[in-house]
């Protein structure tokens, strides 16, 4: 596509320049000029052929991409929110379903089917290095597939303007070996272990008594809020706030204290907790 269009561009501009430089006759006669008629007809015909060729190539490519069928695909349900991503692995038993946010893992070399929708406004899921984008439209659930052929961390982002923090709605897909993926999925299935240290227990109490639990859920505890991302395995994620900040204890503390400074307009209120 690129080469064809580039060559066409060069040819057209060359003719324009030639037309300017060349001094024809400043004729005002009404006669038909055969050479021009032939030249323009040839150009139109050539354009038509090139365009039809490009059209055929485009449709063929599209069909190849869409014709994918694979019984061995892993299905992930994706729900877009303002301004974070909810991922859920579709397994047989509801008790075994893994729910996470803003980062998910896939095994290398296996097809993945994403079933996407939105809970609020239109978002768009886009992993530039893995697949074209697909809009997340409330009221619609559509399926898009992808497959990572090489291990790595692939960055994705929202690609449809969805409000104040559309610019900070990224996510990561970690592609790893099948064994690593199985291990990760098994770990994700575990509920949060009960806190052992005193400070951790204090943290859990604060989490449940302050407003945190009304929006966030932690599997294995009483916190079951559905407004914000699931935080069961938040320590395993590499970023906070849908790709806005690296996940470190300092950043997490700053985020909890006042997310509006970091990502103004997002739905999480400030929590001025004592240190």
């Amino acid at each position, binding site marked *: *596509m690129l080469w064809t*269009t580039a060559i*066409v*561009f060069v040819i*057209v*501009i060359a*003719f*324009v320049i*030639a*037309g*300017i430089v*060349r*001094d*024809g*006759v*400043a*004729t*005002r006669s*009404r006669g038909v*000029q055969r050479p*021009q*008629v032939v*030249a*323009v007809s040839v*150009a*139109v015909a050539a*354009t*038509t052929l090139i*365009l039809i060729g490009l*059209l055929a*190539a*485009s*449709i063929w*490519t*599209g069909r190849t991409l869409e014709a994918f069928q694979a019984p061995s695909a892993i299905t992930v349900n994706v729900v877009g929110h303002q301004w974070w991503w909810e991922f859920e692995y579709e397994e047989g038993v509801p008790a075994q379903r893994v729910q996470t946010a803003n980062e998910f893992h896939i095994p290398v070399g296996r097809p993945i089917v994403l079933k996407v929708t939105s809970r609020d*406004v*239109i978002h*768009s899921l*886009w992993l*530039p290095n893995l697949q*074209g*984008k*697909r*809009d997340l*439209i409330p*009221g*619609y659930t559509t*399926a*898009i597939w992808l497959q990572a052929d090489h291990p790595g961390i692939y960055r994705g982002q*929202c*690609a*449809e*303007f*969805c*409000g*104040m923090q*559309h*610019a900070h709605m990224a996510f990561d897909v970690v592609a790893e070996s099948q064994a690593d993926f199985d291990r990760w999925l098994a770990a994700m299935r575990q509920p949060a272990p009960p806190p052992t240290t005193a400070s951790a227990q204090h943290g859990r109490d604060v989490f449940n008594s302050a407003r945190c639990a009304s929006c966030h859920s932690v599997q294995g505890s009483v916190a079951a809020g559905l407004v914000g991302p699931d935080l069961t395995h938040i320590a395993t994620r590499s970023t906070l706030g849908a790709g806005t900040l690296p996940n470190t204890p300092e950043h997490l503390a700053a985020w909890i204290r006042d997310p509006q400074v970091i990502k*103004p*307009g997002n739905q999480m209120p400030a929590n001025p907790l004592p240190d």
Partner: protein
Amino acid sequence: MTAGELEALNRTWSDPPGFASWFRHVDHRTIGRRYLVTAFGFFLLGGILAALMRLQLSRPDNTIITPDLYNQIFTTHGTTMMFLFAVPVMQGLGVYFVPLMVGAREIAFPRLVAYSYWMFLFGGIFLYVSFLLNAGPDVGWFSYPPLAESLYTPSKRADVWAQLITFTEVASLAVAVSLITTAFKLRTPGMTLNRVPIFVWAQVVTSFMVLFAMPAVMLASTSLICDRLVNTHFFDPEQSGDPLLWQHLFWFFGHPEVYIIFIPGTGIVSTLVATFSRRRMFGYLAVVLSLVATAFMGFGLWVHHMFATGLPQLGESFFTAASIIIAIPTGTQIFCWIATMWSGKVVLKVPMLWVLGFFGVFVLGGLTGVMLASVPLDTQLHDTFFVVAHFHYVLIGGAVFPLFGAFYYWFPKITGRMLSERLGTWVCGLLFVGFNLTFFPMHVLGLHGMPRRVYTYQASLGWGDLNLMASLGAAVMACAVLLFLVDVIRALRVGLPAPANPWDASTLEWATDSPPAPCSFPLPPTVGGREPLWDNAPDQPVVVGLRRDVREVLVTHVLDAEPDHRKVFPAPSIWPLVTAIATTGMFIWSIFTPWGVTYGSIPIFIAMVGWFWPKSPTEGGTRPWPIAHRTLPLPREEPAAGGTI
């Protein structure tokens, strides 16, 4: 005619002087000038908004502009450029030049055109006052629900946007009806359909597109206001509405909209290429048919804005095919232009430089358009800066460059002064360089994954350098526009007086003075060929017998322009302004309460009664009642006398 008769004629056609009378002017040249100046003013405002965007995006993680303000800025920039600049400026050129080019002294329905100008102006003021009051729309120029619904945009911002649509669409529709009627019914005798200038054809084709496309966005924006104001559920999925319905309605308008902007641009290019190649356009029939084909096909492309939504692949393929095939009529026009230049003797005056800029920029944009038409490619490029680059290349290349060419070409006619060749060359060169510096890197940014409508981006993504280059390019573009303003001001003060036909062009507007006398044509010429000023015989008949005491215009037959009847056109009137004020009141009131529609209609009704109420006998019209015998022929009756050429 004698000098006294000419003076009486000009007095009849003059705009009455004085401040109060300024609001009553209805002459097409006055309103056309106002359209051009006002649209250009909005161009400058939209450009300032763009400069602010480029400032914010010049470095990663920039904090000059808050996300809320940025969202208002990019929405207002797009809305301004599409609704308050691009369409009105092209219509303004039509309002000024279509009557002159067809040899008419006035446009059809002059008061309607005056009304449309006021609606355009008031709509724009409404948008910018809202913006300054922090109530500017902030959900993008295409305002997708559910984001635009009241649940996610509880303020009045989206209502301001939706009602701005209503203002500008009413204005555009009114002008479109007037232009079509002018081109069909007011042509001077001898101007059969195959002798109509290509610029006029382009305006007619565009006007038809306006009539068919704008109802779609009116329906959509009205439905959105209803959703937000009275709880209908067209677009919200919670209650069985459908967000995709909005997209279908909006893009059914939105795609023809870009051709509404581009086709007049091609009309300008055809005019300039012919004049500055010193020969008639090659392939008149092919070009006119291409315009019509483009207009028809333009209505079959809209789903290519929705390729990422997951619609069935077979349906999407149809729209890919249409989006690619529409390049054929456009390409035909390009080849005809090249053939004209090839076989003519090109004179590289400033208007022609702008045509060169058009070729360089628009063709590249058209080719990226072919790329975007492909679904697999589009799913990667959609909603990225690649698309931003594409549409700026086709819109600035296809409309703004021809527009500047048109300014340099027609400025002498409108104002009676010549712009500067030297400054004009600098403006063109600066804009060309600045434009490419700004927008070419955006292709790469899109390919590197930068999405649209983001108020900032992280440094780690590596987009900083290209964004900085784009922002510097924007500064160069701003210099070009400033230099243009300098040239205009200089020309208005001390520019060389312009002759009637400085470019030795062939169309009828050059048969008037520069600027034209109030009556445009003291002796309206008839035509004997497609290039009147080149083809007309020395004794080509001129029209006589129109009244000098009222604004009388000759109405002719649609196909062959044979004289049919005379019509008295309105004298200056305050009613267009009064009606526009009443309409503005109703539109603004109705975004606050539905009763605004009911009660707000009452002043409009009163104003329209005033508008259409018969004037006194001294203001023209037929002989008063009762009459001895009828003077008006029946629909199929031949006129009593008239004569043919």
